[in-house]
Structures are given as C-alpha cells and as structure tokens.
C-alpha cells in the first residue's frame, strides 16, 4: 500500500458511511426534498365558496399537508375571465415556481402562455381542462367523454322507460364552445344517446341567465322531450326554466355537477340524474402527480379521476354523500 493511500481510503469510507447513514431515513428525505419545492396552482375560479374549485383546493391542500410541499393558489374570480387567467398565469411564471398546475379556461388561448412557461423551464401539469398543446407533462381530469357517455346512457334508459311512442327530441345545453370539458362531454353524450334524436346543442357561455332564457325560448319553439345540461350553470338554468314553466318531472333532465340546488332538484325529481366528478380526488391526485414528476418518477400522460352517476336512489349513500355534499370549511 502506497504511503498515504489509506488516508484517502479513510475519507472515502467515511463519506460512504455518511451516505449509508443518511439513506436510513430515505423516505423522510423524499419528504424533505418536497418541502423545498413550490407549486403554483392556477385555477379557473377562486372567489366562490363551496363550489367545485373549493373542493379541488381542499384535495390539493390535503396532499400538500401529507408531503409538506408549498402550494400557492391563484385564479380569476370567474371561470369566463380568460384574459384574467392568462395574466395570472404569466404572473405565476414570473414567480419561478418548481411547477405550475393549470386548470385551463380555454383550450386554445392558453397555448402561448404554456409554451412561454416551457421556455422559462417551468413544467406545467394541467388538470380538469387541458390546453391544445403537447408541452404539459400530464393531465389529471375526469375523462369527460366517459362522463358524457354515462350521462347519455342514463338519459337513454329513462327515455326508453318513458316510451313516448315517438322519437324523443333531446336538447343539449353546453356551457362553452371553447372549453375542452364542454367539447368532450358533448361528444360523450352524443355517443351515449346513440339511436335517439338530438335536436341540437346550445351554448350559454357559462351564464346562468342565458341558459335559463334559452331553455324557455327553446321549450316554446320545439317539442323537447329531454334535456342534458353539461355543467352546473347550464343544468341549473335548464332546471329552473323547466320548473318555472311547470314542466318539472315531466321533461327528464340529466345534468352535471353537484351544486346544493341541483341536489334539491334531484331530490324533488326535477333532475333525473346528475353526473358528478370527484374534485377532491382530482385535486389530491394532481398534487401527487406533480410531486412524482418533481421527484423524477415516471408520470402517466393522463390520469382519469372518474365520474359517478347520481340519482335519487343513491344520493344519500354513505359512499357518495361527501362527494355531493362537501364538508364545510372548518375554521383554522
């Protein structure tokens, strides 16, 4: 052994020892690595309490509490404020987080901001509704085509049971022309209703009043036998119009989402069924996925968080009641 060799070997062995010892708590170190990371979540809307996004947020917060990662939420006051979301997205990039989670308000218009984020080396994970781009590392959402098919099939079954003796006319009330959720759900509904006549699709642009007015107008113009509302606002607009015209329980309506008023309509039978997403899971899993990516693990490009068909029969089942009636926010 050359003179002094043992000295270097000693240092190398000591370093090795240190590394081995550190790895005893490897799991903890993963947690510690995540503690230093920061994610900015750009949502579609943040201001309204107790809605879909609130539940998404609590799912995200629970995941972040488990891992210790830092979360920051931002988003416009309303879903239709696309320009505001784009502005907030650029602001998020300027803050240089480790990752941005985006629930895009517009399939096309968020494309440019996302490629800018790529240039700035900030990975993007989309959730709920995506962007027309291949840049995002993944997409966590309800498979909206699948959810649409469920809605369509449920309505098809109801119509079959009604047996009008003629070809029923189905009207679709969509919330937006540009959002991927609306596009996918409509596609799904049309698949699910195959064999039934679909009168057409109308757009309310995420405006309750417009949905209401359109429905009233259309009910006068056409012989409509069933209606599908593609989101909360359009479903409530349709349901209110039908109820106000005294047609409740006569025209079956299948809607989306789980607003408290929708639940009341479901209980009273104005709504035949609603298809609900799992926003809590969506929020929780999108953070988990973002963490996996930050830890260098393999990330699936799409993660379906699933959807459920809710009717009067199952709405108070223990399994579903928390999906439909989210817990109140506790005082912190």
């Amino acid at each position: 052994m050359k003179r002094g060799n043992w000295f270097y070997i000693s240092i190398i062995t000591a370093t090795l020892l240190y590394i081995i010892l550190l790895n005893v708590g490897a799991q903890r170190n993963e947690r510690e690595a995540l503690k230093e990371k920061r994610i900015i979540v750009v949502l579609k809307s943040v201001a309204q309490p107790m809605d879909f996004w609130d539940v998404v947020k609590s799912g995200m917060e629970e995941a972040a509490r488990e891992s210790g990662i830092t979360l920051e939420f931002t988003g416009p006051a309303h879903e239709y404020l696309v320009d505001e979301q784009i502005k907030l997205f650029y602001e998020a990039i300027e803050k240089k987080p480790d990752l941005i989670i985006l629930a895009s308000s517009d399939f096309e218009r968020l494309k440019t901001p996302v490629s800018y984020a790529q240039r700035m080396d900030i990975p993007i994970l989309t959730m709920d509704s995506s962007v027309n781009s291949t840049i995002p590392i993944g997409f966590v959402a309800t498979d909206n085509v699948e959810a649409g098919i469920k809605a369509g099939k449920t309505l098809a079954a109801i119509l079959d049971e009604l047996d009008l003796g003629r070809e029923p006319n189905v009207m679709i009330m969509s919330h937006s022309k540009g959002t991927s959720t609306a596009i996918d759900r409509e596609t799904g509904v049309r698949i699910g209703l195959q064999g039934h006549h679909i009168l057409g699709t109308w757009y309310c642009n995420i405006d309750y009043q417009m949905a209401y007015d359109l429905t009233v107008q259309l009910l006068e113009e056409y012989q409509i036998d069933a209606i599908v509302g593609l989101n909360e606002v359009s479903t409530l607009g349709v349901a209110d119009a039908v109820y106000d015209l005294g047609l409740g329980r006569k025209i079956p309506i299948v809607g989306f989402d789980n607003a408290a008023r929708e639940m009341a309509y479901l209980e009273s039978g104005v709504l035949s069924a609603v298809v609900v997403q799992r926003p809590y899971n969506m929020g929780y899993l999108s953070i988990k996925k973002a963490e996996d990516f930050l830890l260098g693990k393999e990330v699936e490009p799409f993660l379906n968080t699933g959807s459920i068909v809710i009717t009067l029969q199952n709405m108070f089942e223990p399994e579903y009641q928390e999906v439909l009636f989210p817990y109140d926010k506790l005082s912190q």
Partner: protein
Amino acid sequence: MIKRILSFFSTLESRTYYVFTILILVTILSTQFISYQFTQRSLDEVTNTQKGYSMERIVYQIDSYMVTMENIAKAVIQDGRVQQYFSFTEDDPVLRSEISEYLASFLRAREDITTIALISIHNREITSSGDLTVNPYSDIRNQPWFTQAIERPEKPYISSAKVQNLFHGIYPWVVSMSMPLTDHETGTILGVLLVDLNFNRIRELCKPIIQDPPEYIFILNEHGDYVYHPKQQLVFSGIVHEPTEKIMALKDSDPPLEILGKSYIARTSLYAGWKVVCVTELYASIDQWRYIQVAYASIGLIAFIVVGLMANILSRSITHPVKKLCNIMQSVDKNNFDITAEINATEEIRQLSDSFNLMLKKIRDLIEQIHHEQESKRKSELKALQAQINPHFLYNTLDSIIWMSEMGHNEEVVLMTSALAKLFRISISRGKEVITVEEELLHVESYLTIQKMRYREHFSYSIDVEQEILKAPCMKIVLQPLVENSIYHGLKNAPYKGHISIIGRAEEHAIILSVKDNGLGMDPKIFDHLLCETYIPTNISRSGVGLRNVHERVRLYFGDAYGLRCEKNDHQETIISIVLPKADTTKEEVRV
C-alpha cells in the same frame, strides 16, 4: 481487475488496514442501526403515549356530546306538553307552536345542536325550526334513525356522520341521535325524538394536532363502517386503504398497529361505541438524526485514519525485524558467519532469529571441525615428508663411523659421532616443527661436518648469517636438503675443490637463507619445473624430491608467498634460497 484488487491486499499493512476498516464500518453501522431503532422506539413510545392521551380526550368529548344529547332528549320526552300533544290524536296548533318554541330554546342554548324534531308514528311532526315543513320528498319514517329507535327502544340510536335531508334543500352534516317517544302512563310508543348534532363539532375535534409527520384522525362505528374520514372520497375511490378489520380488533391498551408504513392508534368511545383512530406516517421523526449521522461519520473518519496509522505501525513492528533478519541472512550469503542476529521484536520473530543464530553457530562449529581435520591431515603429511629425509644419510654416516673405527681414527670417530648426535637432537627437537634459525644452522653445520669428513676435505664451507635473525623462527631441516643437493649434484663430481656458503640475511619482510655453491650448478628452469605442482617425483632424481619437500613444507606452513627460489650469479654460482617470514607471521591456528 481482480489481480489489481488482490494486489491491494498483498502487504501486511494493507490487509490489517482493510480488515480493521471493515470491522469499524460494520460496528458503526450496527450500533447506528440499533441506536436508531432504540431512539426511534423510545421516541415513538413518548409520542404514542401523548397521542393516546389526546385520543382519549377526543373520545371523552364525543361521549360528552352524546350524553348531552341524550339528556336533552330525555328532558324533551319527559316534558308534559310533549306527552300531552302526542297523546291526543288531534292536532293542537297552540300546543304545537309552544312545543316548537320549547325545542328551539335548546338550539339557542347549544350551538352544536342543529335540529330537534318530534315525529309521531303516523302523521304529525314538530321541529325546532317551526316555520319549515318536513321534506315532502323524503320518506322520513323509513329512515334508519326512525325505524331503529322503534325497533330497539332500550338504547338511543346513534347514526354515523351523514347528510340530513329532513328539510328540502337544506343538507347539513349531522350525527343523529333518536329515541322512542313513549307514553308515560301506557308505555306505548307515540313517535320518535330526533336530535341532530352539528357534525362539524366532531370534525373540529378530529383536526390533526401534529403536522410533521402528518397525521389524521378517522372514526369507525361498531360495525367497522366509517363514521367519518377526512379523506372519505379517497377511501371510497380506493386511493387510500385503511385496514378496518385489523383496527376493529385493536384494543385501547394495545400498542400501535403498524401496517404499510403507517401507525394506527385507536381509542373506543364507550357511549357511542365508536373507534377513534389516529393514523401517523411512519417517518423517521427524529429531527436531530442528521446531526447524529454527521457525528458518527466523523467518528468513523477519525477511526479510519487512526486504523490507518495503527496498521502502519503494527505492520512495521512486524516487518521491520523480519527485514533486519533478512539482511543478516543475506550477509551470510557473502561468507560471513561471524555474526549473530540480535533483534528486538515479538516472541515469534525472536524465536526465528534465535533458531537462525543457533544454525549459524552450528555452521561455524562445523567449519572449525573441518579446519581441524584438514590441519591434522596436513600435519600427518608433514610428518611423512620429514620422515623421507633421514635414512640414507644415517646408514652412510654409520658406515663411515664403522670404517673410521676400524682404521683407528678415534678422534674422527668422536667428532663424527658427536656431530651425528647433534644432528639428530635437532632433527627431533621434541617433535617441534619450528625451531630458531640458530638451531637450524647448528643442524646444518653438524651435517656439513659429517659430510666433509666423509668426502675427505673434498669441499669447504662457510656460514655467514646476520646476527639479528638468529633468534627468528625457522622450520627445521630446511637447509640440510639444500646442502645435500649442493654436495651430491654440484660438488661431488666436480674436478676441483668445492665450496659451500650458507648466507642468512634479513630483508624488509622476509628472512632469506641461501645455500651457494660453486659446483656444476643447476638450471633454474629445471628447478622451476621441480617445484611446480604437477611434478611427479621419479627415482632417477632423488635430490629433486628433497628440494620439493622443503618447498612444500615451507609453503604449507607459512603460506604461498614463501618457499624456495633459485638463481645464478655472475660467477656461475648456483644460489638456492629459502624465503621465510620475518616476524612471527605464522597463523596461530596452524601452530603445532
């Protein structure tokens, strides 16, 4: 590659080093592991005890809520107005609103109660919210809280956390307690009393206390169904799994259940029969762990360096004496046996060196023995050579004495006999090999006296020796053969009267004794031939044997530098000289 690795282990030092390094590494790792386990366990015990306490507090709170609800329920049932209202089969609107107001007063006093309702078996309902009508879309008399209360009147029914749909469009999260409303007098069941507890109160209780490592609390009812789970949706969609069966089997006094990196502590509420479960992720919850690791790694580093030094010293203490011994052995290679290995080392090495020393001594003794044997062999050879000189001369001289006695030359007989006596005395000299030059001269003179008488003055002689060398050592009977040679080969047949001179002188390092004669002489080439080692004596030249004899004896005794020399001077006289060492340079061990 394998050879290169093996070469790391080739020296004693590196082997010692690696062995000790591995030993220390293993020791540190195992102590770390054990102490980690130990610290973790004791820390876990502390946190578990603490958790147990806070869980017991939650359970106590839940039970106290339940007891409150039961007390309220009992108070309502006992109330005279309630009994009175439901005993009648007809509706009394005044009493009805009075009771409603009475129920609402409980709600004002206690924020945690959402609703109190009295539902008759058939068609009447009174609620704490007097202005609200009961949900027309819900078959309230088919709800579990109604049917269970009637079926099991002995015990209040307590529901899981659920969404209450008593009123249309209002869906609060509650825990319901229901009791049968029985007639005081007849004991018949008139209806059911429902008390709804705001479930948020229980959720508040179950808020996680510790955030790092993250924990959460969930509740199971006595059937193992969820009363409450903060991640209810994840549980129902199969993303989060809880081992409910094992938890149900868990007693309050049991140590925490540890499954799949999670630890479960459960406490059971005696009143509600619920199991409150606290779940903690099994992270290493020691914050100082990293510092401990750094400390251990530093200790390791120091230990490794010390081991390196120790290995160096240790191996040197072993190899150094071995190297020394090796060097000593190598010097033996160069024919040096006069050494002893004296080495300060461990017992084993010392034994080795001792054995080596013993071996050297044996070798030395053997060499000595061989020397002695050779010596005695040479001595016997010498004796044999000496013995060759004497006989002829003795016979001849004795013949001469006889002859002279017959002739009556008495004086000459005396002279010759005494010379002969001198000759033999010196010849024998008590067996000594070396005598003085003086004695040797006396010997040769006696011989010359005898020969001169035998050859009737046919030659003359002279002796001229420097005084200083008379006491010098000299081999005996060396001059006599030379003189004999001069007489028989130089003078005996010379037509003139010969002369023999014996000259002795000292040179710087040697003594030269010469015999010079003016006889026929001898060719130095023949002389050299005589003395050369391959010469084989023949009977023809007897004198040659004598000269050679002397030469060999001198050389045997004093070494190769000495011996006989032959030269002729300007007068054609032959001089044969004996070269002897001047001082006493004879080898001690060769002395006889």
